[in-house]
C-alpha cells in the first residue's frame, strides 16, 4: 500500500472507525458498571441508540449563548481526538510510520477535547456552564503537567526520541512500565487519563447532581451527540496512547492483537472500577491531589529514569 493510501486508511480509522469502536468501549464501561452494581446493564447497541436518538432531537440554545462558538466547540473537540487517533493508528499499523515529534503532536491534540468543553461551556450563556468551565480549567491546570512529565521516562528509555514509532520500537526489549520509574510514571498517567476522560473522581466539570450537567448543561440534539461521541473516542484513544507509550505498543498481528486487546481491556476495566468505587472529589481536593501527589511522583519517576538512562 502506498503512502497516500495508507494515510487515507488511517484517517478513516481515526475519524470514523474510532467513534464506532469507542462507542463499543463505552458500552463495555456501562456493562462493567452494571455488573458491579449487581444488575444486567444495557444491551450492546445501547450507545449507538443514544447517538441516533440525540441526532434526531432539535438543537436548542439559550438566548445569551454565543452561537458560533457554542456550536463549533464540539467539532473542535472531535477534530482533536480524531487527529490523535489517526496518528496512533498509523503507528499501530505500521510501526515505522509517523514523523519526527509526533508524540508532541498527539499530546497537543489530546488537549482539544477539554478545551472544546471549556469554550462551549463559556459560550453557553448559563451560570451552571460557566461554573463547569471554571472547574474544567482548574482541572486541566492540574493534570496536564503530570501527564506531560510522565511521558518523559518513556522518552528517556527509548533514547531521547520524540517519535511514537521510536518509542514503540524501543519497547521491543521490554515495556516501559516494567521499570521502577516507568511504572510510577504509568500510575501518574492513569490518574491524568481519569481526569482527561472526565470520570469520577474527576468529573467536577460535569457534576450531574451539583451542576445539572455543568459544561454540557445547555447542549441538546446533534451537538450533544458529537460531545458524546468525542467522549467515547477518548475512551478508546487514551488507553491506546498509554499502551503505545508505556506498555509495548499496539500490535495488530497474530498474538500481539490478542495481547493488545487484553491490555486494553485491563486499562478500561481499571478506569471503570475506579469510577465506580470513588466519590467525586471537590475541585480543590482534585487540584491538591494533582499538584502535591501526582506531580512529585512524576518528578521522582523522571529522576529515576534519568539515573537509569545515564547513571
Amino acid at each position: 500500500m502506498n503512502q497516500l493510501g495508507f494515510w487515507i486508511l488511517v484517517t478513516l480509522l481515526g475519524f470514523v472507525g474510532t467513534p464506532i469502536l469507542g462507542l463499543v468501549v463505552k458500552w463495555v464501561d456501562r456493562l462493567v458498571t452494571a455488573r458491579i452494581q449487581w444488575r444486567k446493564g444495557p444491551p450492546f447497541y445501547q450507545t449507538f441508540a443514544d447517538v441516533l436518538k440525540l441526532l434526531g432531537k432539535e438543537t436548542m440554545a439559550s438566548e445569551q449563548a454565543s452561537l458560533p462558538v457554542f456550536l463549533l466547540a464540539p467539532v473542535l473537540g472531535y477534530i482533536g481526538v480524531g487527529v490523535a487517533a489517526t496518528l496512533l493508528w498509523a503507528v499501530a499499523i505500521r510501526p515505522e510510520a509517523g514523523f519526527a515529534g509526533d508524540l508532541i503532536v498527539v499530546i497537543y491534540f489530546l488537549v482539544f477535547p477539554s478545551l472544546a468543553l471549556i469554550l462551549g461551556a463559556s459560550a453557553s450563556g448559563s451560570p451552571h456552564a460557566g461554573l463547569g468551565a471554571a472547574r474544567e480549567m482548574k482541572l486541566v491546570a492540574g493534570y496536564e503537567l503530570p501527564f506531560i512529565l510522565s511521558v518523559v521516562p518513556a522518552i528517556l528509555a527509548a533514547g531521547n526520541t520524540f517519535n511514537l514509532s521510536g518509542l514503540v520500537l524501543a519497547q521491543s526489549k521490554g515495556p516501559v512500565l516494567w521499570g521502577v520509574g516507568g511504572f510510577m510514571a504509568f500510575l501518574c498517567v492513569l490518574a491524568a487519563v481519569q481526569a482527561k476522560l472526565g470520570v469520577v473522581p474527576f468529573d467536577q466539570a460535569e457534576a450531574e447532581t451539583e451542576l445539572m450537567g455543568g459544561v454540557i448543561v445547555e447542549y441538546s440534539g446533534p451537538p450533544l451527540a458529537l460531545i458524546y461521541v468525542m467522549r467515547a473516542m477518548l475512551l478508546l484513544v487514551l488507553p491506546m496512547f498509554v499502551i503505545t507509550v508505556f506498555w509495548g505498543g499496539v500490535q495488530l498481528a497474530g498474538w500481539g492483537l490478542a495481547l493488545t486487546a487484553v491490555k486494553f481491556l485491563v486499562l478500561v476495566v481499571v478506569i471503570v472500577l475506579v469510577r465506580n468505587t470513588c466519590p467525586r472529589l471537590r475541585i480543590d481536593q482534585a487540584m491538591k491531589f494533582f499538584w502535591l501527589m501526582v506531580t512529585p511522583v512524576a518528578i521522582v519517576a523522571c529522576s529515576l529514569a534519568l539515573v537509569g538512562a545515564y547513571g
Partner: protein
Amino acid sequence: MSVLDKLKLWGLKKSPWVYHVNTGACNNCDIEVLELLTPRFDVERLGVLLAPSPRHADALLVTGICTRQARPRLQEIYRQTPKPCVVACIGACACTGGIFHEAWHFAGPVDEVVREVDPNAIIVYIPGCPPKPEAMISALAQTLAKL
C-alpha cells in the same frame, strides 16, 4: 418515513433519558421515581438514564399537582426540552389533582398546563398514590412501543 428517520425513531425508543420535575408533590411519588432508578429495577436495560438537564431529556417525569408557583416554571421546562419528548404524569396528583383538586393552590392538572404550551404534547398517565416502579416501567414500555 426515510431510513434516517426510522433509525432516529429506533434510537428514541431504545434510549429514553428522563428528567424528573416536582411541581409541588408530597415527595411520595418522587421517592418511587428514585427507587425506579436504583439498581434493583435496572431500567438501564431499557436505556433509561437520569438526565441532569432538561436539554438532554426525552421524557419528563412530572410529579405533584401543579401549584400556582410551579405552573410557569413547568411550562418553561417543557419548552426547554427538545422535541420529540414525552410528558409522564406520575401519580394521582399529576394526572388529575388527586385529593388536592379543590385546594387553594391548585393551578390545573399537569396535562392542562403542558397543553397550554403545546397542544400536541405526548402525555402519558401513570395513576397511583404512589404508583409502583413496576407500574412506571410497564407504562414506559407501552409508551415506547406506541411511539
